[in-house]
Each structure stands twice: as structure tokens, then as C-alpha cells.
């Protein structure tokens, strides 16, 4: 038992020594690697750009643009290998993403080109060190983690930038999404256009209940002619909103249920009859006027 422990300890010390030795050698390897990539910049860069074109990536950009971006990425790439800091690359990647996202460049293309560069450079390292297999292994040990980190950074920056743009657009859409309009005294209409998701349904509820209070509404017509589909969750949310409106003393009429929605609702067993469905918006408004005691009459019979 004791012998074994001693043995284990000795080998640990030896491992540590070996680790330190390897680390010292690797410190020298990276500068060598960087120098190699700098010396062969023109050739490697061209090869990379060719591989990008061959793989049909970045088709939204002209070859000149691809080449100039490739140059920047290449220089940043070597910079990261040299300094170990990804910050400059991160900034560049974000900036690049901002330029290329609106042009329809996809995530797989961006990841694809960075992985291509990684392959091109690894291939060139193979060529340079193929005579000394041990050295090649150590060069790759130094190169691979850094290269992976770079690929990671670029992909993450791209995706983050895209998400930021998507969020921005979603915010813009949301602001426009649920108008509450008063068409008669105590009568509101809420036209809803587009897909109703959870978040929009929540917003609808808020707008509707707030609108009832603000306009002292008695009847609200919700028109969903422009809604392509309703799932069970959103439909139930609508029913809840109707119940809440009733608690505030307002009745709800829902109009414009499409054939698809009508079929879906019956199939999934959501009961919307509480919402007083009326075929179309005109019918809904007429019904609401009847409830409120309005009668609309034409002043002249010219166009009757």
C-alpha cells in the first residue's frame, strides 16, 4: 500500500516536470507558428478564398468582397494565435456580422468559412512539419485549441448579432401590433393581424382591459380575420381575456374566425361560444350597435 503510494507520488512529480518542459517548448512553438502563417499569408489567403468559392459559401457577396473580408479574418485569426486574446476578433466578427446579416448570409456559411480557414491552415502545417511527426503533433496541440476558440468566437458573435437584429425587429413589430380603436361611444374594436403567440396574446389582454377602462367600453369587437392560426393555449388565453372583460363589465364579440381556425378549435375542443362569435367584422359591429342601442340609418336613398 505504502509502496504504491510512493510510486504514484514519484510519477506525479515526473509528470509535472514533463508538463513544465512541454509548456516551455510550446511557448516557443506558437511564435514559430505565427511566423509561418505570416510568411505564407498571400498564398494561404488565396487558397482559403478559393475554397470558399468552391464550397459555394458567401454567394451573397462578390468575389472581391469575399477576398477583402477573408484578408481581415485571416489577419485577425493570426493575431488571436499570437496574442491569445479574442477581443479584437470579437469586435471584428460583430462588425462583420452587422454588415452581412442583412444580406442574408446564413449561420452555416459563417461557421463553414471559419472551419475552412482552420483546415487550410492545418493542411499547411502538415506540409511544413510532415518530416517530424512529434513536432507536428506538438504544433497541432498548440494550434487546435486556439483555432477552435476562434471558430467558436466568430460563430457566437454572428449568432448574437443576428439575435440582436431579430429582437430589435420583434420590438418594432410589437409596438404596432395591437391597436385598440373606439368606433362608437362605448364600443371598441381590436383588429388583430398576424400570428398570435403567447407574448402577443398577453399584450392583447393588457391593451384590451386597459382600453375598456380608459374608454369606459361596454362592448369590444375582436376581429381575427388576419390571424392564420390559433393553438389551444392562445385560444384558452382568449377565453380568459373574455372572462376578465366580463368582470370589468364589458361584453366581447369575436369576428372573422377563418374556416381553418373554426375546424382547429372544434377539433381541439376549445369552446369559444362564450365569445359571441359573429361571422365578419361588419356583422360584429352591427351586433355591438344593437346591444348598445345604436341604430344606423342612411340619410339619403341615393345609393340604396
Amino acid at each position, binding site marked *: 500500500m505504502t509502496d504504491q503510494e510512493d510510486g504514484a507520488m514519484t510519477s506525479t512529480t515526473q509528470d509535472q516536470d514533463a508538463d513544465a518542459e512541454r509548456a516551455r517548448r510550446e511557448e516557443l512553438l506558437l511564435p514559430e507558428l505565427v511566423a509561418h502563417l505570416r510568411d505564407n499569408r498571400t498564398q494561404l489567403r488565396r487558397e482559403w478564398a478559393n475554397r470558399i468559392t468552391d464550397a459555394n459559401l458567401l454567394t451573397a457577396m462578390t468575389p472581391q468582397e469575399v477576398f477583402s473580408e477573408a484578408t481581415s479574418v485571416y489577419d485577425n485569426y493570426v493575431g488571436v494565435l499570437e496574442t491569445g486574446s479574442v477581443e479584437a476578433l470579437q469586435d471584428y466578427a460583430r462588425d462583420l456580422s452587422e454588415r452581412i446579416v442583412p444580406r442574408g448570409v446564413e449561420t452555416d456559411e459563417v461557421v463553414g468559412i471559419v472551419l475552412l480557414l482552420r483546415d487550410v491552415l492545418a493542411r499547411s502545417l502538415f506540409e511544413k512539419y510532415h518530416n517530424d511527426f512529434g513536432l507536428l503533433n506538438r504544433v497541432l496541440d498548440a494550434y487546435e485549441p486556439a483555432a477552435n476558440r476562434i471558430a467558436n468566437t466568430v460563430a457566437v458573435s454572428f449568432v448574437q448579432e443576428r439575435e440582436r437584429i431579430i429582437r430589435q425587429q420583434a420590438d418594432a413589430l410589437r409596438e404596432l401590433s395591437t391597436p385598440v380603436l373606439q368606433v362608437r361611444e*362605448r364600443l371598441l374594436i381590436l383588429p388583430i393581424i398576424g400570428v398570435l403567440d403567447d407574448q402577443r396574446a398577453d399584450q392583447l389582454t*393588457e391593451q384590451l382591459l386597459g382600453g375598456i377602462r380608459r374608454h369606459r367600453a361596454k362592448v369590444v369587437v375582436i376581429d381575427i380575420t388576419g390571424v392564420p392560426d390559433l393553438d389551444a393555449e392562445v385560444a384558452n388565453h382568449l377565453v380568459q*381575456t373574455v372572462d376578465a372583460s366580463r368582470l370589468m363589465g364589458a361584453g366581447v364579440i369575436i369576428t372573422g374566425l377563418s374556416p381553418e381556425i373554426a375546424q382547429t378549435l372544434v377539433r381541439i375542443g376549445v369552446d369559444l361560444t362564450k365569445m359571441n362569435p359573429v361571422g365578419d367584422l361588419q356583422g360584429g359591429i352591427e351586433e355591438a350597435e344593437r346591444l348598445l342601442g345604436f341604430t344606423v340609418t342612411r340619410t339619403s336613398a341615393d345609393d340604396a
Partner: protein
Amino acid sequence: MPDRDVPSEPLRVSILTQGSYLIASIHTALDDGQLLRFQHDLIERIGTQRSRGVIIDVAALDVLDSFGSRTLRDIARMSRLRGAETVIVGIAPELAMSMVRLGLDLDLPTALDLEEGLAYLGSRTGSRTGSRTGARAGGAARPGRPR
């Protein structure tokens, strides 16, 4: 119904008389004991004032638990037995949504605010202001006609 509260504590509900209607305003959230005391007081007042309608104003409430909503429903049923219609008014948007989410079905007539509540009782009992001279009109269904 025995009072669970200390009798000397002022009730945080005011019950006012308006013609033949009682108007009860709940000013702050009530605990169970206070609710029961309120119920007791209100049902008693209906008899002594010969009220035909009760309006309970909950505009100041931002929460209502299951006991609270059950008590309101009970009050409405008891009032009916004593000859008065009940309407709940002033439920705020947040309260309305939270009640629906909790599945609290009030199952009671509700109206937007005091004015609407008076109009509703007017249509049910046939007098706009609760004065005793008004004849009973054919009960126009909610929502009532705007004036």
C-alpha cells in the same frame, strides 16, 4: 354570524345609502374575519333600509382570493333572498386577469364603475337613481342603453 374581529376596530368598508340602493366600498384588502363582518353588516342593512339593490365597489382592491370571491358570491345570494339585486363594480384590469387565471368564477353581475352599476340596477329594478317612485320596467338585458 358572530364577529371574529375586535368590535372596536373600524370596518374598512363604508356602506352608504342611495335611495333604495346600498353602496358598499371596500377600501383595502380585507382578511377573512373582516369579510364575514362586512357580509353580516350588509345583509342586515338590506332589511333595515328596505334596499332593492346593492353595489359593491372593489376598485381599491388589487387582489381577491378564493375566500373573498366566494364571500362576494354569498353576499349576492343572501341579498337576493332578502330582496335585493347585487352588482360588483370597479374590478381593475389586473384584478380581473388574476381572478381569471386563478379560476375564480365570480358568477355575478359586474359593471365597470359606480355609474354603470347604478345604471344596471336601474334596468333591473326599474329606477335610475334608486328613488322609490320609479315603476318596475321590463328588465333590459345588459349591456344597457347609453344615455
